[in-house]
Protein backbone atom coordinates (compact mmCIF):
# COMPACT_ATOMS: atom_id res chain seq x y z
CA UNK A 1 0.00 0.00 0.00
CA UNK A 2 2.98 2.32 -0.47
CA UNK A 3 2.11 5.53 -2.23
CA UNK A 4 3.72 6.46 -5.46
CA UNK A 5 5.63 9.61 -4.47
CA UNK A 6 7.52 10.68 -7.54
CA UNK A 7 9.73 13.37 -6.13
CA UNK A 8 11.17 15.80 -8.59
CA UNK A 9 14.72 16.95 -7.89
CA UNK A 10 14.72 20.19 -5.95
CA UNK A 11 17.03 22.86 -7.22
CA UNK A 12 15.47 26.27 -6.65
CA UNK A 13 15.83 27.98 -3.26
CA UNK A 14 12.10 28.22 -2.62
CA UNK A 15 11.02 24.71 -3.32
CA UNK A 16 8.87 23.75 -0.36
CA UNK A 17 9.76 20.77 1.78
CA UNK A 18 7.10 19.34 4.08
CA UNK A 19 7.86 16.49 6.43
CA UNK A 20 5.37 16.24 9.28
CA UNK A 21 5.84 13.32 11.65
CA UNK A 22 2.80 14.13 13.69
CA UNK A 23 0.37 16.95 14.36
CA UNK A 24 -2.23 16.58 17.03
CA UNK A 25 -4.32 18.96 19.06
CA UNK A 26 -6.39 18.84 22.21
CA UNK A 27 -10.09 18.39 21.83
CA UNK A 28 -11.23 20.49 24.76
CA UNK A 29 -14.82 19.21 24.95
CA UNK A 30 -13.80 15.56 25.03
CA UNK A 31 -10.42 16.02 26.74
CA UNK A 32 -8.69 13.75 24.25
CA UNK A 33 -5.90 14.40 21.77
CA UNK A 34 -6.89 14.31 18.14
CA UNK A 35 -4.33 13.12 15.69
CA UNK A 36 -4.77 15.34 12.66
CA UNK A 37 -1.72 14.53 10.56
CA UNK A 38 0.71 11.63 10.69
CA UNK A 39 3.75 10.91 8.50
CA UNK A 40 2.93 13.40 5.81
CA UNK A 41 5.78 14.04 3.43
CA UNK A 42 5.81 15.96 0.18
CA UNK A 43 7.76 18.57 -1.75
CA UNK A 44 6.37 21.34 -3.90
CA UNK A 45 8.70 22.85 -6.53
CA UNK A 46 8.70 26.63 -6.72
CA UNK A 47 5.94 27.97 -8.92
CA UNK A 48 3.89 24.77 -8.97
CA UNK A 49 0.12 24.85 -8.68
CA UNK A 50 -0.55 22.03 -6.28
CA UNK A 51 -4.01 20.90 -5.18
CA UNK A 52 -4.71 18.99 -1.99
CA UNK A 53 -7.81 16.82 -2.26
CA UNK A 54 -9.27 14.84 0.59
CA UNK A 55 -12.43 13.97 2.47
CA UNK A 56 -13.86 16.59 4.80
CA UNK A 57 -12.34 16.65 8.25
CA UNK A 58 -9.04 15.21 7.03
CA UNK A 59 -7.00 18.08 8.46
CA UNK A 60 -6.61 20.18 5.33
CA UNK A 61 -7.16 23.45 7.17
CA UNK A 62 -4.81 22.29 9.93
CA UNK A 63 -2.16 21.69 7.28
CA UNK A 64 -2.65 25.15 5.76
CA UNK A 65 -2.36 26.75 9.20
CA UNK A 66 0.93 24.92 9.67
CA UNK A 67 2.20 25.99 6.26
CA UNK A 68 1.27 29.62 6.91
CA UNK A 69 2.83 29.66 10.35
CA UNK A 70 -0.49 30.55 12.02
CA UNK A 71 0.06 27.32 13.93
CA UNK A 72 3.68 26.67 14.86
CA UNK A 73 3.12 23.73 17.10
CA UNK A 74 4.15 20.61 15.20
CA UNK A 75 6.46 17.66 15.25
CA UNK A 76 8.21 17.88 11.90
CA UNK A 77 9.71 20.21 9.35
CA UNK A 78 8.21 22.74 6.98
CA UNK A 79 10.87 24.75 5.17
CA UNK A 80 12.13 25.99 1.87
CA UNK A 81 15.06 24.39 0.10
CA UNK A 82 17.37 27.17 1.30
CA UNK A 83 16.50 26.49 4.92
CA UNK A 84 14.23 29.47 5.51
CA UNK A 85 10.67 28.85 6.64
CA UNK A 86 7.51 30.05 4.83
CA UNK A 87 6.89 32.66 7.53
CA UNK A 88 10.16 34.39 6.64
CA UNK A 89 8.66 35.41 3.28
CA UNK A 90 5.40 36.98 2.18
CA UNK A 91 2.47 34.57 2.31
CA UNK A 92 -0.82 34.91 0.48
CA UNK A 93 -3.85 33.28 2.05
CA UNK A 94 -7.37 33.01 0.79
CA UNK A 95 -9.82 31.67 3.32
CA UNK A 96 -13.07 29.82 2.77
CA UNK A 97 -14.92 33.07 3.45
CA UNK A 98 -13.66 36.32 1.88
CA UNK A 99 -12.78 37.74 5.33
CA UNK A 100 -12.84 41.35 4.21
CA UNK A 101 -13.05 44.13 6.75
CA UNK A 102 -16.59 45.52 6.44
CA UNK A 103 -15.53 49.00 7.57
CA UNK A 104 -12.92 49.41 4.83
CA UNK A 105 -13.43 50.12 1.14
CA UNK A 106 -12.40 47.59 -1.50
CA UNK A 107 -9.14 49.41 -2.13
CA UNK A 108 -8.37 49.84 1.57
CA UNK A 109 -9.06 46.15 2.13
CA UNK A 110 -6.30 45.31 -0.32
CA UNK A 111 -3.78 47.97 0.72
CA UNK A 112 -4.25 47.42 4.46
CA UNK A 113 -2.07 44.29 4.43
CA UNK A 114 0.82 46.16 2.74
CA UNK A 115 3.14 48.92 3.94
CA UNK A 116 1.15 51.31 1.75
CA UNK A 117 4.07 52.59 -0.26
CA UNK A 118 3.11 54.29 -3.53
CA UNK A 119 4.27 51.19 -5.42
CA UNK A 120 2.11 48.90 -3.35
CA UNK A 121 -0.90 51.17 -3.71
CA UNK A 122 -0.39 51.13 -7.46
CA UNK A 123 -0.13 47.34 -7.45
CA UNK A 124 -3.33 47.16 -5.38
CA UNK A 125 -5.17 49.27 -7.92
CA UNK A 126 -3.83 47.18 -10.78
CA UNK A 127 -4.91 43.96 -9.11
CA UNK A 128 -8.38 45.32 -8.42
CA UNK A 129 -8.61 46.40 -12.06
CA UNK A 130 -7.50 42.93 -13.17
CA UNK A 131 -10.31 41.51 -11.07
CA UNK A 132 -12.72 43.71 -13.00
CA UNK A 133 -13.61 45.78 -9.96
CA UNK A 134 -12.26 49.19 -11.01
CA UNK A 135 -15.71 50.72 -10.58
CA UNK A 136 -15.97 49.43 -7.03
CA UNK A 137 -12.63 50.73 -5.73
CA UNK A 138 -14.34 52.85 -3.04
CA UNK A 139 -17.32 50.60 -2.35
CA UNK A 140 -17.76 48.79 0.92
CA UNK A 141 -17.81 44.96 0.93
CA UNK A 142 -21.48 44.95 1.93
CA UNK A 143 -22.29 46.52 -1.43
CA UNK A 144 -20.69 43.65 -3.33
CA UNK A 145 -21.95 40.19 -4.21
CA UNK A 146 -20.29 37.11 -2.73
CA UNK A 147 -18.37 36.50 -5.95
CA UNK A 148 -17.11 40.07 -6.07
CA UNK A 149 -16.02 39.91 -2.44
CA UNK A 150 -13.96 36.85 -3.30
CA UNK A 151 -12.35 38.73 -6.18
CA UNK A 152 -11.22 41.34 -3.66
CA UNK A 153 -9.84 38.51 -1.53
CA UNK A 154 -7.90 37.19 -4.56
CA UNK A 155 -6.44 40.65 -5.17
CA UNK A 156 -5.46 40.88 -1.52
CA UNK A 157 -3.84 37.43 -1.61
CA UNK A 158 -1.53 38.56 -4.44
CA UNK A 159 -0.78 42.09 -3.29
CA UNK A 160 2.25 41.24 -1.16
CA UNK A 161 3.80 39.18 -4.00
CA UNK A 162 3.70 35.97 -1.98
CA UNK A 163 6.33 33.28 -2.25
CA UNK A 164 3.55 30.86 -1.48
CA UNK A 165 -0.19 31.23 -1.87
CA UNK A 166 -2.48 29.11 0.28
CA UNK A 167 -6.14 28.71 -0.65
CA UNK A 168 -8.66 26.94 1.55
CA UNK A 169 -11.65 25.91 -0.61
CA UNK A 170 -12.13 29.53 -1.65
CA UNK A 171 -14.82 29.00 -4.28
CA UNK A 172 -16.88 26.47 -2.37
CA UNK A 173 -20.15 28.35 -1.92
CA UNK A 174 -20.32 29.93 -5.37
CA UNK A 175 -22.44 28.85 -8.29
CA UNK A 176 -20.61 27.24 -11.19
CA UNK A 177 -20.51 30.23 -13.54
CA UNK A 178 -19.13 32.63 -10.94
CA UNK A 179 -16.80 29.95 -9.60
CA UNK A 180 -15.36 29.32 -13.06
CA UNK A 181 -14.83 33.02 -13.69
CA UNK A 182 -12.90 33.30 -10.44
CA UNK A 183 -10.85 30.19 -11.23
CA UNK A 184 -9.80 31.80 -14.51
CA UNK A 185 -8.93 35.03 -12.73
CA UNK A 186 -6.88 33.13 -10.18
CA UNK A 187 -4.96 31.32 -12.93
CA UNK A 188 -4.30 34.60 -14.72
CA UNK A 189 -2.67 36.17 -11.67
CA UNK A 190 -0.81 32.97 -10.85
CA UNK A 191 0.64 32.89 -14.38
CA UNK A 192 1.76 36.51 -14.00
CA UNK A 193 3.40 36.09 -10.59
CA UNK A 194 4.39 32.41 -10.81
CA UNK A 195 3.99 31.94 -7.11
CA UNK A 196 3.83 28.50 -5.53
CA UNK A 197 0.20 27.59 -4.87
CA UNK A 198 -1.28 25.14 -2.40
CA UNK A 199 -4.98 24.88 -3.14
CA UNK A 200 -7.21 22.82 -0.88
CA UNK A 201 -10.46 21.48 -2.31
CA UNK A 202 -12.66 18.41 -2.29
CA UNK A 203 -13.88 19.05 -5.83
CA UNK A 204 -11.86 16.81 -8.15
CA UNK A 205 -13.09 18.58 -11.29
CA UNK A 206 -11.84 21.91 -9.92
CA UNK A 207 -8.51 20.37 -8.93
CA UNK A 208 -7.91 18.89 -12.39
CA UNK A 209 -8.81 22.13 -14.12
CA UNK A 210 -6.52 24.25 -11.97
CA UNK A 211 -3.47 22.33 -10.96
CA UNK A 212 -0.18 20.90 -12.14
CA UNK A 213 -0.42 18.17 -9.59
CA UNK A 214 -2.89 16.74 -7.11
CA UNK A 215 -2.02 15.28 -3.73
CA UNK A 216 -4.75 13.05 -2.34
CA UNK A 217 -5.08 12.87 1.43
CA UNK A 218 -6.40 10.07 3.60
CA UNK A 219 -8.91 10.43 6.38
CA UNK A 220 -7.46 11.70 9.64
CA UNK A 221 -4.80 11.22 10.81
CA UNK A 222 -4.00 12.52 7.40
CA UNK A 223 -1.21 11.43 5.07
CA UNK A 224 -0.60 11.49 1.31
CA UNK A 225 -2.11 8.47 -0.40
CA UNK A 226 -1.66 9.42 -4.02
CA UNK A 227 0.44 11.89 -5.96
CA UNK A 228 -0.95 12.64 -9.40
CA UNK A 229 0.58 14.88 -12.06
CA UNK A 230 -1.61 16.62 -14.60
CA UNK A 231 0.17 17.18 -17.85
CA UNK A 232 -2.49 19.00 -19.79
CA UNK A 233 -1.33 22.13 -21.57
CA UNK A 234 -2.48 25.55 -20.44
CA UNK A 235 -4.60 27.49 -21.04
CA UNK A 236 -7.08 24.73 -20.40
CA UNK A 237 -10.68 24.84 -21.48
CA UNK A 238 -13.34 24.24 -18.89
CA UNK A 239 -15.29 21.84 -21.08
CA UNK A 240 -12.18 20.06 -22.37
CA UNK A 241 -12.85 16.35 -22.90
CA UNK A 242 -9.32 15.60 -21.74
CA UNK A 243 -10.01 16.96 -18.27
CA UNK A 244 -13.13 14.89 -17.95
CA UNK A 245 -11.57 11.67 -19.20
CA UNK A 246 -8.68 12.17 -16.81
CA UNK A 247 -11.12 12.46 -13.95
CA UNK A 248 -13.06 9.37 -15.02
CA UNK A 249 -9.86 7.40 -15.41
CA UNK A 250 -8.67 8.44 -11.97
CA UNK A 251 -11.95 7.50 -10.35
CA UNK A 252 -12.17 4.13 -12.08
CA UNK A 253 -8.58 3.28 -11.11
CA UNK A 254 -9.13 4.34 -7.51
CA UNK A 255 -12.86 4.27 -6.85
CA UNK A 256 -12.55 5.30 -3.20
CA UNK A 257 -9.85 7.92 -3.54
CA UNK A 258 -12.16 10.81 -2.72
CA UNK A 259 -13.14 9.25 0.58
CA UNK A 260 -9.49 8.92 1.48
CA UNK A 261 -8.80 5.30 0.55
CA UNK A 262 -6.72 3.81 -2.22
Amino acid at each position, binding site marked *: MENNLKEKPLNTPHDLIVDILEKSYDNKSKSIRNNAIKNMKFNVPQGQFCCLVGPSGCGKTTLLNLLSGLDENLNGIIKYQDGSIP*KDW*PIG*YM*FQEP*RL*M*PWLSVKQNVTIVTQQTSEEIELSENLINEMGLSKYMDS*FPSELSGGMQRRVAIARAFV*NKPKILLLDEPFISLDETVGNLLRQMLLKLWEQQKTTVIFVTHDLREAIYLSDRILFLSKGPSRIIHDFNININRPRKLNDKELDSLRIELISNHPEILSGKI
Partner: protein
Amino acid sequence: MSSEISKNKYFRMGNPIYMRIFSFVLLLFVWQISSFLIQSDVLPSPKTVLSIFFNEMVNGEMLYHLGITLWRVILAFTIAMLLGTGLGIAMGSKKNVNIMLDGWHILLLNTPALVIIILCYVWFGLNEIAAITAVALNKIPNVLVTIREGTRAIDRKILQVADVFKVSYKKKFISFFLPQLYPFIMAAARGGISLIWKIVLVVELLGRSNGIGFKLNEFFNLFDIASIFAYTLSFVAVMIFVEYAIISPIERRLNKWRTI
Protein backbone atom coordinates in the same frame (compact mmCIF):
# COMPACT_ATOMS: atom_id res chain seq x y z
CA MET B 1 -54.08 67.98 -5.94
CA SER B 2 -50.32 68.10 -5.93
CA SER B 3 -50.25 70.91 -3.38
CA GLU B 4 -52.47 68.83 -1.16
CA ILE B 5 -49.99 65.99 -1.28
CA SER B 6 -47.09 68.26 -0.41
CA LYS B 7 -49.12 69.79 2.41
CA ASN B 8 -49.80 66.34 3.78
CA LYS B 9 -46.12 65.52 3.57
CA TYR B 10 -45.35 68.78 5.36
CA PHE B 11 -47.40 67.90 8.39
CA ARG B 12 -46.95 64.19 8.26
CA MET B 13 -46.49 62.78 11.76
CA GLY B 14 -43.38 60.91 10.80
CA ASN B 15 -41.42 64.00 9.77
CA PRO B 16 -38.73 64.05 12.47
CA ILE B 17 -37.96 67.78 12.56
CA TYR B 18 -41.56 68.89 12.97
CA MET B 19 -42.19 66.17 15.51
CA ARG B 20 -39.26 67.37 17.56
CA ILE B 21 -40.30 71.01 17.42
CA PHE B 22 -43.86 70.07 18.28
CA SER B 23 -42.76 67.99 21.23
CA PHE B 24 -40.57 70.83 22.52
CA VAL B 25 -43.34 73.41 22.18
CA LEU B 26 -45.70 71.04 23.95
CA LEU B 27 -43.28 70.79 26.87
CA LEU B 28 -43.01 74.61 27.14
CA PHE B 29 -46.78 74.87 26.94
CA VAL B 30 -47.38 72.33 29.72
CA TRP B 31 -44.73 74.05 31.84
CA GLN B 32 -46.26 77.49 31.29
CA ILE B 33 -49.80 76.30 32.08
CA SER B 34 -48.67 74.43 35.20
CA SER B 35 -46.73 77.37 36.60
CA PHE B 36 -49.66 79.67 35.84
CA LEU B 37 -52.06 77.37 37.70
CA ILE B 38 -49.77 76.74 40.66
CA GLN B 39 -48.66 80.37 41.03
CA SER B 40 -45.75 79.55 43.32
CA ASP B 41 -41.97 79.96 43.50
CA VAL B 42 -41.71 76.18 43.45
CA LEU B 43 -42.45 76.11 39.73
CA PRO B 44 -41.28 79.31 38.05
CA SER B 45 -42.56 80.11 34.58
CA PRO B 46 -40.37 79.55 31.48
CA LYS B 47 -40.11 83.31 31.08
CA THR B 48 -38.65 83.82 34.58
CA VAL B 49 -36.16 81.03 34.08
CA LEU B 50 -35.06 82.36 30.69
CA SER B 51 -34.54 85.87 32.01
CA ILE B 52 -32.35 84.56 34.85
CA PHE B 53 -30.52 82.39 32.34
CA PHE B 54 -29.65 85.39 30.15
CA ASN B 55 -28.76 87.61 33.12
CA GLU B 56 -26.37 85.05 34.53
CA MET B 57 -24.90 84.44 31.11
CA VAL B 58 -24.25 88.11 30.53
CA ASN B 59 -22.64 88.77 33.91
CA GLY B 60 -20.29 85.79 33.36
CA GLU B 61 -21.18 84.03 36.61
CA MET B 62 -22.87 81.11 34.88
CA LEU B 63 -20.19 80.74 32.22
CA TYR B 64 -17.52 80.50 34.92
CA HIS B 65 -19.25 77.70 36.82
CA LEU B 66 -20.32 76.02 33.62
CA GLY B 67 -16.71 76.04 32.42
CA ILE B 68 -15.42 74.55 35.69
CA THR B 69 -17.99 71.77 35.64
CA LEU B 70 -17.42 71.06 31.97
CA TRP B 71 -13.67 70.82 32.58
CA ARG B 72 -14.24 68.26 35.35
CA VAL B 73 -16.59 66.29 33.13
CA ILE B 74 -14.06 66.18 30.29
CA LEU B 75 -11.21 65.18 32.59
CA ALA B 76 -13.15 62.46 34.40
CA PHE B 77 -14.63 61.22 31.13
CA THR B 78 -11.24 60.93 29.47
CA ILE B 79 -9.70 59.09 32.41
CA ALA B 80 -12.67 56.75 32.77
CA MET B 81 -12.76 55.94 29.05
CA LEU B 82 -9.02 55.29 28.80
CA LEU B 83 -8.79 53.14 31.93
CA GLY B 84 -12.14 51.42 31.35
CA THR B 85 -11.24 50.59 27.75
CA GLY B 86 -7.77 49.36 28.66
CA LEU B 87 -9.02 47.17 31.49
CA GLY B 88 -11.99 45.98 29.41
CA ILE B 89 -9.72 44.85 26.58
CA ALA B 90 -7.32 43.16 29.00
CA MET B 91 -10.13 41.37 30.85
CA GLY B 92 -11.96 40.45 27.66
CA SER B 93 -8.93 38.92 26.00
CA LYS B 94 -7.00 37.36 28.88
CA LYS B 95 -8.79 34.83 31.02
CA ASN B 96 -6.40 35.12 33.96
CA VAL B 97 -6.63 38.91 34.07
CA ASN B 98 -10.40 38.57 34.09
CA ILE B 99 -10.39 36.09 36.98
CA MET B 100 -7.95 38.31 38.87
CA LEU B 101 -9.85 41.58 38.47
CA ASP B 102 -13.47 40.47 38.24
CA GLY B 103 -14.05 40.53 42.00
CA TRP B 104 -12.70 44.07 42.34
CA HIS B 105 -14.76 45.10 39.39
CA ILE B 106 -18.01 43.78 40.85
CA LEU B 107 -17.20 45.44 44.16
CA LEU B 108 -16.67 48.80 42.47
CA LEU B 109 -19.67 48.38 40.19
CA ASN B 110 -21.97 47.89 43.16
CA THR B 111 -20.52 50.50 45.50
CA PRO B 112 -22.90 53.46 45.59
CA ALA B 113 -21.56 56.61 43.91
CA LEU B 114 -22.01 58.53 47.15
CA VAL B 115 -19.81 56.11 49.10
CA ILE B 116 -17.01 56.42 46.55
CA ILE B 117 -17.25 60.21 46.65
CA ILE B 118 -17.19 60.38 50.45
CA LEU B 119 -14.25 57.97 50.68
CA CYS B 120 -12.26 59.89 48.06
CA TYR B 121 -12.78 63.16 49.93
CA VAL B 122 -11.86 61.52 53.24
CA TRP B 123 -8.74 59.84 51.86
CA PHE B 124 -7.42 62.50 49.47
CA GLY B 125 -8.85 65.65 51.05
CA LEU B 126 -11.33 68.16 49.65
CA ASN B 127 -9.41 68.82 46.47
CA GLU B 128 -9.60 68.57 42.71
CA ILE B 129 -7.77 65.24 42.50
CA ALA B 130 -10.21 63.61 44.91
CA ALA B 131 -13.15 65.03 42.96
CA ILE B 132 -11.97 63.79 39.56
CA THR B 133 -10.90 60.41 40.97
CA ALA B 134 -14.30 59.92 42.57
CA VAL B 135 -16.13 60.62 39.30
CA ALA B 136 -13.82 58.46 37.20
CA LEU B 137 -14.05 55.56 39.67
CA ASN B 138 -17.81 55.68 39.39
CA LYS B 139 -17.70 55.40 35.64
CA ILE B 140 -14.83 52.97 35.01
CA PRO B 141 -16.79 49.79 35.91
CA ASN B 142 -19.55 50.65 33.41
CA VAL B 143 -17.11 51.34 30.58
CA LEU B 144 -15.30 48.14 31.48
CA VAL B 145 -18.43 45.97 31.21
CA THR B 146 -19.24 47.26 27.73
CA ILE B 147 -15.70 47.03 26.39
CA ARG B 148 -15.16 43.57 27.84
CA GLU B 149 -18.26 42.33 26.03
CA GLY B 150 -17.00 44.00 22.88
CA THR B 151 -13.61 42.35 23.18
CA ARG B 152 -15.24 38.96 23.60
CA ALA B 153 -17.25 39.58 20.45
CA ILE B 154 -14.14 40.35 18.35
CA ASP B 155 -13.99 38.30 15.17
CA ARG B 156 -10.77 36.29 15.50
CA LYS B 157 -10.94 35.39 11.84
CA ILE B 158 -10.28 39.01 10.93
CA LEU B 159 -7.29 39.05 13.28
CA GLN B 160 -6.01 35.90 11.55
CA VAL B 161 -5.90 37.88 8.31
CA ALA B 162 -3.54 40.31 10.02
CA ASP B 163 -1.40 37.40 11.25
CA VAL B 164 -1.15 35.72 7.87
CA PHE B 165 -0.14 38.92 6.13
CA LYS B 166 2.26 39.67 8.97
CA VAL B 167 1.13 43.21 9.66
CA SER B 168 2.87 44.81 12.64
CA TYR B 169 1.44 44.39 16.11
CA LYS B 170 0.60 48.08 16.32
CA LYS B 171 -1.23 48.09 13.00
CA LYS B 172 -3.06 44.89 13.88
CA PHE B 173 -4.38 46.59 17.00
CA ILE B 174 -5.29 49.90 15.35
CA SER B 175 -6.60 48.69 12.00
CA PHE B 176 -7.93 45.19 12.68
CA PHE B 177 -8.87 45.11 16.37
CA LEU B 178 -10.02 48.57 17.40
CA PRO B 179 -12.46 49.16 14.51
CA GLN B 180 -14.38 46.10 15.66
CA LEU B 181 -14.60 47.70 19.10
CA TYR B 182 -15.80 51.14 17.94
CA PRO B 183 -19.55 50.47 18.38
CA PHE B 184 -18.88 49.38 21.95
CA ILE B 185 -16.62 52.34 22.65
CA MET B 186 -19.30 54.69 21.30
CA ALA B 187 -21.97 53.03 23.45
CA ALA B 188 -19.75 53.37 26.52
CA ALA B 189 -18.98 57.01 25.68
CA ARG B 190 -22.60 57.95 25.16
CA GLY B 191 -23.77 56.31 28.39
CA GLY B 192 -20.68 57.65 30.10
CA ILE B 193 -21.03 61.32 29.42
CA SER B 194 -24.56 61.59 30.78
CA LEU B 195 -23.76 59.60 33.90
CA ILE B 196 -20.56 61.52 34.52
CA TRP B 197 -22.06 64.96 34.49
CA LYS B 198 -24.67 63.90 36.98
CA ILE B 199 -22.02 62.54 39.32
CA VAL B 200 -19.82 65.60 38.86
CA LEU B 201 -22.67 67.74 40.26
CA VAL B 202 -22.88 65.56 43.38
CA VAL B 203 -19.10 65.76 43.83
CA GLU B 204 -19.23 69.54 43.53
CA LEU B 205 -22.12 69.77 45.93
CA LEU B 206 -20.28 67.75 48.56
CA GLY B 207 -16.81 69.15 48.41
CA ARG B 208 -16.04 71.91 45.90
CA SER B 209 -16.56 75.65 46.09
CA ASN B 210 -17.33 76.20 42.44
CA GLY B 211 -19.12 74.52 39.52
CA ILE B 212 -22.79 73.99 38.75
CA GLY B 213 -23.23 71.52 41.61
CA PHE B 214 -21.91 74.03 44.11
CA LYS B 215 -24.25 76.73 42.75
CA LEU B 216 -27.27 74.39 42.85
CA ASN B 217 -26.62 73.73 46.53
CA GLU B 218 -26.40 77.46 47.15
CA PHE B 219 -29.71 78.08 45.38
CA PHE B 220 -31.29 75.22 47.26
CA ASN B 221 -30.34 76.84 50.57
CA LEU B 222 -31.80 80.12 49.35
CA PHE B 223 -34.83 78.32 47.96
CA ASP B 224 -34.15 79.96 44.58
CA ILE B 225 -35.87 77.43 42.33
CA ALA B 226 -35.81 79.65 39.26
CA SER B 227 -32.00 79.79 39.34
CA ILE B 228 -31.82 76.02 39.77
CA PHE B 229 -33.88 75.71 36.60
CA ALA B 230 -31.70 78.22 34.78
CA TYR B 231 -28.43 76.45 35.69
CA THR B 232 -29.84 73.04 34.84
CA LEU B 233 -30.97 74.43 31.52
CA SER B 234 -27.48 75.70 30.76
CA PHE B 235 -25.91 72.33 31.30
CA VAL B 236 -28.58 70.42 29.43
CA ALA B 237 -27.95 72.80 26.52
CA VAL B 238 -24.24 71.98 26.64
CA MET B 239 -24.94 68.26 26.69
CA ILE B 240 -27.31 68.51 23.75
CA PHE B 241 -24.61 70.39 21.91
CA VAL B 242 -22.08 67.65 22.75
CA GLU B 243 -24.49 65.00 21.51
CA TYR B 244 -25.33 66.63 18.20
CA ALA B 245 -22.08 68.40 17.40
CA ILE B 246 -19.56 65.83 18.62
CA ILE B 247 -20.87 62.35 19.39
CA SER B 248 -23.39 61.93 16.57
CA PRO B 249 -21.06 63.07 13.77
CA ILE B 250 -18.31 60.75 15.04
CA GLU B 251 -20.76 57.90 15.19
CA ARG B 252 -22.05 58.62 11.69
CA ARG B 253 -18.52 58.61 10.38
CA LEU B 254 -17.63 55.35 12.08
CA ASN B 255 -20.84 53.71 10.95
CA LYS B 256 -20.71 54.94 7.38
CA TRP B 257 -20.21 51.43 6.08
CA ARG B 258 -23.26 50.12 7.96
CA THR B 259 -25.82 52.58 6.71
CA ILE B 260 -25.83 51.51 3.09
